[in-house]
């Protein structure tokens, strides 16, 4: 399986061996993985990273069984790069492409009640709450202090993800994050959605041959436009 995520400043790719039975998310070791953190260059970075990961694992596109992509939430432009790349790559090969909420790429390997927060720009965060790796609230977009309140209401103690470093004050009284078992997580590894985790989450559908749901991006915001006023007079 080829999995990728572009919902954060990280542009991440992983090649994962599809097991006979679905493993727990944290237990999947990628055959090869690539990650570059550069919020503005996903469009240039992603395909070369895919090519390099395939080459490292000595896998050709024709060997793949399926494609998995993080559907966001994330900044629109980079998010679309990932989704259209995954969808088109899969279509060219006649493979299915499975979408997973990108925040699950962090939250699914946490334990206890944990919140995941990523940067939504405009002084807001994308967030979701997890109970032993299961998403129990979100994804949603809110101002950091409001997100912190909602997470607390969900009984969340620890918060992980790039939003934590951006808004330390809002999430200050959240206890230190417990990163989960598995891929050698710890705070640094949980910083960005892990495509290997997304692959593991999609594996049951892929193994069962279930048709994937449509790849609907999780934007959480409407396009920023106003209807024009009637043409204004050019003369006084």
């Amino acid at each position: 399986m080829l999995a990728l995520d572009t919902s954060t400043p990280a542009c991440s790719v992983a090649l994962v061996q599809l097991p006979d039975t679905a493993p727990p998310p944290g237990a999947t070791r990628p055959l090869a993985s690539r990650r570059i953190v550069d919020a503005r260059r996903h469009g240039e970075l992603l395909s070369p990273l895919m090519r390099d990961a395939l080459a490292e694992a000595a896998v050709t596109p024709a060997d793949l069984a399926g494609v998995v992509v993080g559907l966001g939430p994330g900044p629109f432009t980079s998010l679309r790069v990932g989704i259209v790349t995954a969808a088109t790559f899969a279509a060219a090969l006649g493979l299915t492409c499975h979408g997973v909420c990108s925040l699950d790429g962090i939250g699914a390997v946490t334990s206890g009640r944990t919140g995941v927060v990523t940067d939504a720009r405009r002084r807001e965060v994308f967030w979701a709450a997890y109970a032993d790796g299961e998403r129990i609230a979100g994804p949603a977009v809110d101002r950091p202090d409001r997100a912190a309140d909602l997470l607390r209401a969900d009984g969340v103690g620890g918060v992980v993800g790039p939003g934590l470093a951006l808004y330390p004050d809002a999430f200050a009284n959240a206890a230190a994050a417990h990163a989960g078992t598995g891929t050698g997580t710890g705070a640094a590894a949980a910083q960005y959605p892990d495509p290997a985790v997304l692959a593991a989450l999609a594996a049951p559908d892929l193994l069962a041959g279930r048709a994937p749901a449509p790849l609907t991006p999780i934007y959480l915001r409407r396009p920023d436009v106003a209807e024009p006023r009637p043409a204004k007079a050019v003369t006084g």
Partner: protein
Amino acid sequence: MTRPTPTGTVSGTSSGTSPSRGPAPLVLGIETSCDETGVGLVRDGVLLADALASSVDEHARYGGVVPEIAARAHLEAMVPTIDRALATAGAKASDIDAVAVTAGPGLAGALLVGVAAAKAYALALGVPLYGIHHLAAHVAVDTLEHGPLPSPSIALLVSGGHSSLLLVEDLAAAPVVSLGATVDDAAGEAYDKVARLLGMPFPGGPPIDRAARDGAPTIPFPRGKAGDGTFDFSFSGLKTAVARWVEARRRAGEPVPVADVAASFQEAVVDVLTAKAVAAARKHGVDTLVIGGGVAANSRLRALAAERCESAGITLRVPRPGLCTDNGAMVAALGALKVASGVAPSPLDLPASSTLPL
């Protein structure tokens, strides 16, 4: 047969044949620079499919293209539009020998969707990728209808985003030379703005074209930069003049003769466009003029250009209207020319550039 990899180079042959033997290469073209998701398939100068999805209706209420809405629509339409093109051509993805894509100029977020899709397709199939200049593609599409373009030719490109006069020598290999361009609004943009002040729907070109048929060009609107000796255009003063004229009528409580205003505005636009295009051909000793872009669908532009080219001894080439507006066929057409002339493919880190120079 060894196929060139996306990052490798195609061994160039000056004979204009494909790098492989057998049938000529099948080239997929993807266009997403504005509000149309276009996918074309071309083999050997023949158009096999030209699938299009447009978000124009979603923009109509805003009076212009909204970049974020366009980009969202491209993402939704991409795979279905590619599939439709393949089905029309009776081809499979694995039949494709090269992928071409508009790399710019255009709306950044919209371009990025097409460029990412094209790279993914090229990488999946192990075929070369070609980044294409949108304006050069508008010219190249004419070769699908009228065969190879004589070198040199003059091209007049008039659309919602561009108004340019170009000197074209070798479309595939040599850079196109810009002789002039609008200094403010594009011609199509002027149509859209004038239509709005006359209460017509977006896009404004077709309703003005229709209304003008019932009117006469009796109002002497200004011809911006007409006699300035450059090949540049200006349409913003014209738009303001139309607005002032219409407002004066309304303020005086008189009815606005919409058909005459439309015909007079249109005549002012088309007069300058065709006069400068013919002058450019004369100055450069060129005997072929190609017109492309959405405004090339305009009936008066076609008629006046035909008239003026005829008396100047210039051969006029205008693709059918469906190929004048943005489409994938034009990208596939230029991609196929590049493959045939052995031009090196683009790297997989090809950027999308909203301001890509010629």
